[in-house]
């Protein structure tokens, strides 16, 4: 009996590993196709700008709300942690460093990943189950060029743009709380921002955002294209795209943070 359970367990684990490897292979093939078709896709610039508007402009309100409160919480936490240990003049410094290196890029990616990843997967998934993707192929239009490349380019370009916006809003949110409830003067807060703003920190955050944008676009497109069945299939694809995007954003954040701290910040 125990042997049977062990055999079944081993078989299940083997299948899961093989499924995972196959999934990585399929994603890689899709990305290779997308890379090959990037130049032809640039001819349809209108498709890319439409996606940029949907991904970027469409996310601004959500990002604004999340960022204001992120900055506000960062200010409250900093003030609490600093109490009687670190002078409050460093509050601006802590906020700008934490926001532009970590909080801005990661929280923006998670928020946009939820919204945009779900939207791309649902749209492409619905197109798949209603034969719209077959219709594109029937018209000799490559769906990777027409659907995937514009979404990938738009995600990679727009996530850093939205992150810059998010950074600014979060710093403003921190400022409002620092000045109104913690008693830090505007001059002190701004001085902290100025003294601890480094272009390297900003660029590392934005580079991370580009990676996150690529992950969000890839997950949305991949699971959208893999949708099977009807409404249930679209729901499953959407969930997988969002979960996949969020998990990969956090894992890649760790790897990229390690990379940037070793390569970029050691020379700061």
């Amino acid at each position, binding site marked *: 009996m125990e042997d049977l359970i062990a055999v079944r367990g081993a078989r299940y684990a083997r299948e899961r590993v093989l499924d995972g490897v196959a999934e990585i292979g399929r994603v890689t093939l899709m990305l290779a196709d997308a890379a090959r078709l990037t130049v032809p896709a640039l001819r349809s610039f209108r498709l890319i700008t439409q996606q940029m508007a949907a991904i970027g402009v469409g996310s601004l309100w959500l990002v604004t709300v999340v960022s204001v409160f992120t900055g506000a919480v960062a200010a409250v936490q900093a003030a609490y942690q600093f109490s009687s240990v670190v002078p409050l003049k460093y509050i601006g410094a802590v906020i700008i460093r934490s926001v532009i290196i970590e909080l801005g890029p990661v929280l923006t990616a998670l928020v946009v990943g939820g919204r945009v990843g779900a939207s791309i997967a649902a*749209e492409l998934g*619905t197109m798949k189950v209603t*034969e719209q993707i*077959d*219709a594109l*192929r*029937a*018209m*000799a239009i490559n769906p990777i060029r027409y659907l995937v490349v514009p979404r990938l380019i738009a995600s990679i370009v727009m996530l850093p743009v939205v992150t810059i916006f998010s950074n600014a809003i979060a710093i403003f949110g921190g400022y409002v709380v620092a000045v109104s409830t913690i008693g830090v003067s505007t001059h002190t807060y701004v001085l902290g921002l100025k003294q601890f703003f480094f272009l390297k920190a900003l660029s590392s955050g934005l580079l991370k955002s580009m990676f996150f944008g690529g992950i969000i676009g890839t997950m949305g497109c991949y699971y959208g294209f893999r949708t099977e069945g009807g409404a249930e299939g679209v729901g499953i694809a959407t969930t997988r795209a969002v979960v996949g995007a969020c998990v990969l954003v956090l894992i890649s954040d760790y790897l990229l943070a390690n990379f940037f701290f070793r390569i970029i910040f050691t020379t700061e």
Partner: protein
Amino acid sequence: MIQIRGLRKRLGGRAVLDGVDLDIEDGECVVVIGRSGTGKSVLLKHILGLMTPDEGSIQIEGVEIVGMSERELDEVRQKFGMLFQGAALFDSLTVGENVGLGLREHGRLSDDEIRKRVSERLDWVGLEGVEDTKPASLSGGMRKRVGLARAIAMDPRYILYDEPTTGLDPIMADAIDSLIRGMQKRLGVTTIVVTHDLDSAFKVGDRFAMLHEGKIVFFGNTQETRSGSNAMVKQFIEGSSTGPIKV
């Protein structure tokens, strides 16, 4: 001419196509009939290269398409137009953009020429002034007609219809049948219609193939089909649950 030999395809462990042989001559309208789920739509998708067979051969105008790359298949696909079962219109585009999409993406015509072609093809299917309408606000019959206008926009040599009258009221179904026949005469195209609607089949078809359990079990003209010489076709036409076709 389309020549299919020994086409086999397994899906989900089931042999959907199990050695299909079929010849379709230029300019004729072949109707593939059969029960739902017998692989009629799968057969159409193989002819267009949208699905890859496990075995077998498909020759379009003497050229083997099985094993072709996507790029080579795209060349072949430009000879085809297809009306999908649910019309498969792109929700995010207007009717005019849907009909003109192929022309625009292949850069064959100027914007003015595309506009003219789009309105001409919409006129052919009896729709005028709907270019700026979104597909979501169209009825089922109108969607099918827009789908047909899109299928004929690029002057295809072959038109494939997947259940063109399914879900339509009898009057609209008759209108679609007339359009199928009209397009064949006007454009001189080779037509393949997949349907289980026998009224529609007899209105549009020159020859009839019956697909059952993955095989073509009958292929004949209208007279041979109606004569009931084949027990399966007879049962299908009579709509009887007893006979060689098991329910």
